[in-house]
C-alpha cells in the first residue's frame, strides 16, 4: 500500500520554483503555510489546505485523470444542498 497521498506528494522544492514560472519571494512569504524562501530544499505543496482539493471520480473507462488548477485571487470552494 502506498505511503503517500496527493496532498503530500504534489509540490516542488523552493530551489526548483526559483528556476522559472511565477516565483516571487514575497509570494512565498505570504503563503498561509511556513515556507522558507532561503531554503532550496523546502517543499512547497500544491495544496496548501486539504480542504482546497476536491477529489472526484468521473469520466469514462480509460487510463486518464483530469487535473483542474485554481485561481490566485482567493476563492474557496463551496458546497451546499439545494431544494428539489
Amino acid at each position, binding site marked *: *500500500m*502506498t505511503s503517500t*497521498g*496527493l*496532498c*503530500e*506528494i*504534489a*509540490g*516542488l522544492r523552493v530551489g*526548483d*520554483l526559483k528556476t522559472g*514560472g*511565477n*516565483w516571487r519571494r514575497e*509570494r*512565498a512569504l*505570504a*503563503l*498561509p*503555510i*511556513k515556507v522558507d524562501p532561503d531554503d532550496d530544499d523546502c517543499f*512547497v*505543496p*500544491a*495544496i*496548501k489546505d*486539504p480542504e*482546497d*482539493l*476536491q*477529489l*472526484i*471520480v*468521473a*469520466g*469514462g*473507462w480509460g*487510463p*486518464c*485523470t*483530469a*487535473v*483542474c*488548477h*485554481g*485561481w*490566485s*485571487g*482567493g*476563492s*474557496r*470552494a*463551496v*458546497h*451546499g*444542498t*439545494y*431544494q*428539489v
Partner: protein
Amino acid sequence: MLNERVDEFEFFLEKPWSDGFPVVTPTEERISRMLAQTERDYEEVIGLIPPAMEIATVRTVAVHALMAGCRPEYLPVVLGATELMLREEFNVNGVQGTMHGVAPMMIVNGPYAAEIGVHGGNGCLGPGFRANATIGRAIRLILMNLGAGIPGISSMTIFGMPSRYTYCLTENMEDHPWDSLAVSKGYRPDENVITMAMVESPRFCFDDVSDEPDRLLLGIADTMAAMGSWNMHARSDMVVAMGPQHAGICAGAGLRHRDVHRPVRDRRPKGG
C-alpha cells in the same frame, strides 16, 4: 418587439445577452412552464450578481435557464448553484474581473442529478449532454447578463476558457470505488448537493503504464504541481477528477478516498 420582420435569434445575438450562441427565446409561455417547476415565490431575491449587482430573482434565474436551453426540471439545480456561488468565500466578484480565466465548475451529487440526467461518465466534460451543457451555460449567462462579466466591459480575462461556456458534471457513481465527494464532505448519500470550485479547464494526466498507486499518484501529483499554475504560488483550489480506471487501481490496492487525498502532515500553519 419581435415580429415577422425580426429574426428572434439574431435579435438576442445583436444584444449583449448571449454567450455567442443562439439562445432560446424566453417567451412568457415558456417562462411559465419553467417556473412551474418550483414552488418558490417567483419574485424571491436570490442575490445580487457582481459586479453590476443586478438582482437575481427566481424569475430571472428561470429566464436564463430557459435561454440556456434547460429543461424545467433543471431549474432547481440552477437556482441552487446561483445561491451557492454568491457566498462570500467563493469571491465571484473577483473572478468576474480577473485577468485569469477560471470558471465555476459545478459538481452535482445526489439522486436528483441522476434523475435529470447530469452526466458523469464517458465524455462528461465535453459536448453531447443536455443537462451538463445547459445548466452550466445558464450560470454563465447569469454571470454575463446580470453580472456584466463580459470581456472588455468588466472582465479583464486574457484568454477566457472553453469551460466558461459550461462547466457542469456529476461523478461516475456506476464505476466509483468510493463514496461521492459530497459524502466525503459529510453529506448523506440521499442529499442533493452542489460543489462549486473556481478552476481552469482540465489538464490531463494520461498514464496507461502504472498499475499500482505509488507510481500512478506520482504522475498525477506532477501534473498538480505545474510551475505555471497558481497552485504553486498561492493558496488555491484544485479539482482532481480521477478516471474510474485510475481510481480503481488505488482502490484495488486498498486505498480509500481519504488515503489518496491525505492532508500534509507535519506542516504547521503560520503561527502554529
